């Protein structure tokens, strides 16, 4: 129940944080809301010598529009995203996803950046940002770079962040015209994590055919992924109920599905199709008000 001893650092600026991250290297772990790291430390599954608490970096807590993008600071909490009127208007998928994370207490402290950097295979944000074709900003002592969401999730709890890099922001395009997005999830009953979570954004052309579609899926495999096989079946096509169902059947194609106490691999495969289909139907409804 109580972590092993460690040293605690609370940088007041991004520069200070980067310096500490570089200084401690492998012996240091970053903490944002703490709701991924602290449970592991309490069970003594993780025992970093140095904990670098990014929680005081208020400069990384924001939601704004800039240059046609929507940009969200890494330390923005799930609750702030859930209650953002700007996002409700310009990118409904984000507040909808935020609302489904954990519970009200977790949402007050958990952060977008913390969740993405941790890349739990059952976390919700990875699926959402994949569906939004988002980009992730990483800062290091050497500067900053933007990483496409598609390139960000590399493996089980492994991201494209390099040692010494801090995830500082996420940016994404607002919802275009004739488009709809949604996030649907089947919760693991106790933990609230996703047994399956699906984020969809789709846009229609003048002929009401699917012009763009992006489907992010979490909870099914070792990492969140784009259901590319489903997307290929739908692009440029009229979104009939039958086509959606047939395409959704390919939701877990090529994915090594997880198995745990709650859900077997086959059950997850089945759920992936069901939820991809339901999410597509809902996004379509919203694209056609």
């Amino acid at each position, binding site marked *: 129940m109580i972590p092993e*001893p460690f040293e605690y650092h609370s940088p007041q600026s991004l520069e200070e944080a980067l310096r500490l991250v570089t200084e401690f290297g492998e012996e240091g772990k970053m903490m944002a809301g*703490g709701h991924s790291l602290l449970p592991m430390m*309490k*069970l003594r599954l993780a025992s970093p010598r140095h904990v670098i608490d990014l929680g005081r970096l208020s400069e990384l807590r924001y939601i704004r529009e800039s240059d046609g993008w929507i940009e969200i600071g890494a330390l923005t909490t799930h609750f702030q995203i859930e209650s953002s009127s700007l996002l409700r208007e310009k990118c409904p998928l984000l507040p909808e996803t935020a609302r489904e994370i*954990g519970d*009200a207490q977790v949402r*007050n*402290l958990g952060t977008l950046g913390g969740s993405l950097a941790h890349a739990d295979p059952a976390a919700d944000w990875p699926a959402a940002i994949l569906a939004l074709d988002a980009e992730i900003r990483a800062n290091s002592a050497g500067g900053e770079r933007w990483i496409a969401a598609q390139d960000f999730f590399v493996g089980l709890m492994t991201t494209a962040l390099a040692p010494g890099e801090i995830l500082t922001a996420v940016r994404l395009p607002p919802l275009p015209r004739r488009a709809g997005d949604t996030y649907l999830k089947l919760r693991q009953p106790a933990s*609230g994590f996703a047994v399956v979570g699906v984020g969809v954004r789709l846009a229609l052309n003048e002929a009401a055919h699917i012009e763009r579609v992006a489907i992010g899926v979490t909870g099914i495999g070792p990492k969140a992924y784009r259901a590319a096989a489903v997307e290929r079946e739908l692009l440029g096509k009229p979104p009939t109920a039958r086509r959606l169902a047939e395409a959704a059947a390919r939701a877990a194609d090529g994915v090594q599905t997880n198995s745990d106490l709650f859900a077997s691999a086959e059950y997850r495969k089945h759920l992936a199709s069901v939820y991809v289909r339901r999410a597509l139907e809902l996004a379509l409804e919203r694209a056609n008000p």
Partner: protein
Amino acid sequence: MKIRVKINGVTREDDVEPRLLLVHYLRELAGLTGTHIGCETSICGACTVLMNGAAVKSCTVLAVQADGSEITTIEGLSGRNGQLHPLQQGFWEEHGLQCGYCTPGMILAAHQLLSRNPHPSRAEIRKALEGNLCRCTGYQHIVKAVEWAAEKVRAQAEHA
């Protein structure tokens, strides 16, 4: 490490280990045992307190993270003469408790709800209390207790 925390309106300064959890800080150093411990993994919500007005699970927060913050525990909801806050009154009158172990955390989570949404629907009440488990009551009376309190709080606000 030295920390300075305002708990229920009273500021204290302590020297604590980084690994001291906020829940233990409150229960042992500050002697406020109304905040309870029910699990190890931030699931049950019995440890819920308000930190800078927002409900958090104090078993998953370090005391050092709370440096400079304002904490409200269940003891801080009662008035100076022990008068019950409408939520406390509501849980009592509407029978929203049996063994009472989950009750402080439940009340504080409900407090956050009412401060954000003075007129919550039943569905909104249930959504807001997702992070708090109860083994005894069946939850129905808890929902009623929060409804009762919401009405009382609104009435008090109107009179003020």
